[in-house]
């Protein structure tokens, strides 16, 4: 443990946190906006690295998270209440998303379970998550990413890191009619402006 520096970076109550999109004022989309965009700010994000072929690693992750490690490419696993998730990013890399404030706990739980060569990194300050829903959400994705987002290629439970306009993003499909975008903090404003611009013809609502 002492080999790696870990500390609780969460400030807790009393400190005002600002999401990467704290400054945007939002758009109203009328009665039936084709696209509804919402930010789920302040979630906890951890990068997990390790050897997926190592059974003890798999077990450890499952123990710590209560979700099995996705070993199949682009797989998204969610826990029962869909409050946390783990997704495949590469053969030795996963993204864990947990409720804000629990990232330290989660990291400690992982570190308690895992042995050997692995890494856990808290990256909670570096991203934000946007949900996309509405009848035209898919249209907007088609405009924004080169990935094949056709529902047949992108069933519920898939999560893909790819290009998004001129930035990168993780696109996830946690449920039938909601899409999630995880974008990097410094690109969040750009992605937001892009989304609004691409959605406007359908009517878009963001608050």
């Amino acid at each position, binding site marked *: 443990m002492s080999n790696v520096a870990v500390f609780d970076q969460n400030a807790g109550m009393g400190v005002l946190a600002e999401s990467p999109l704290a400054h945007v004022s939002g758009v109203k989309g009328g009665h039936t906006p084709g696209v509804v965009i919402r930010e789920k700010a302040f979630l906890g994000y951890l990068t997990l690295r390790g050897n997926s072929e190592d059974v003890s690693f798999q077990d450890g992750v499952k123990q710590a998270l209560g979700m099995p490690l996705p070993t199949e*490419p*682009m797989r998204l696993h969610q826990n029962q209440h869909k409050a946390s998730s783990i997704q495949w*990013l*590469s*053969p030795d*890399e996963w993204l864990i998303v947990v409720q804000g404030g629990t990232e330290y706990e989660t990291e400690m739980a992982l570190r308690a379970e895992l042995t050997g060569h692995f890494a856990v990194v808290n990256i909670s300050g570096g991203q934000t998550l946007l949900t996309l829903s509405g009848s035209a959400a898919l249209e907007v994705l088609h405009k924004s990413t*080169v*990935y094949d987002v056709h529902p047949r290629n992108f069933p519920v439970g898939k999560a*893909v*890191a*790819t*290009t998004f306009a001129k930035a*990168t993003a993780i696109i996830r499909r946690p449920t039938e009619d909601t899409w999630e975008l995880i974008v990097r903090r410094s690109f969040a404003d750009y992605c937001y402006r892009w989304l609004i611009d691409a959605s406007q013809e359908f009517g878009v609502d963001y608050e």
Partner: protein
Amino acid sequence: MFYIYCPYCGEHREESEFRPKGQAHIMRPKDPESCSDEEWADYLFFRDNPKGVHHEMWVHATGCRKFFNMTRDTVSYEILEVYKMGEQPKITAASRVVGGEK
């Protein structure tokens, strides 16, 4: 505009997610100090640059961030195979001529 099968992601992805990284299988000399200037220059700068079957390295830059190798025809741009780092190609200029494909 290539459609590239990423051997790690296990599916075809658009070229814009990848970046080409030049000739594959260029090994850094194990003992640089004992290399002559010519050998070092060869490692740094001199490339096969073939017309036809070429082994090259790509990285899935906006996807899984993994490097992998590709055998590609530099004239037809057909991707003949992709294979992971550390593996050897199955298709080579020689094998293609023997196989009588081309």
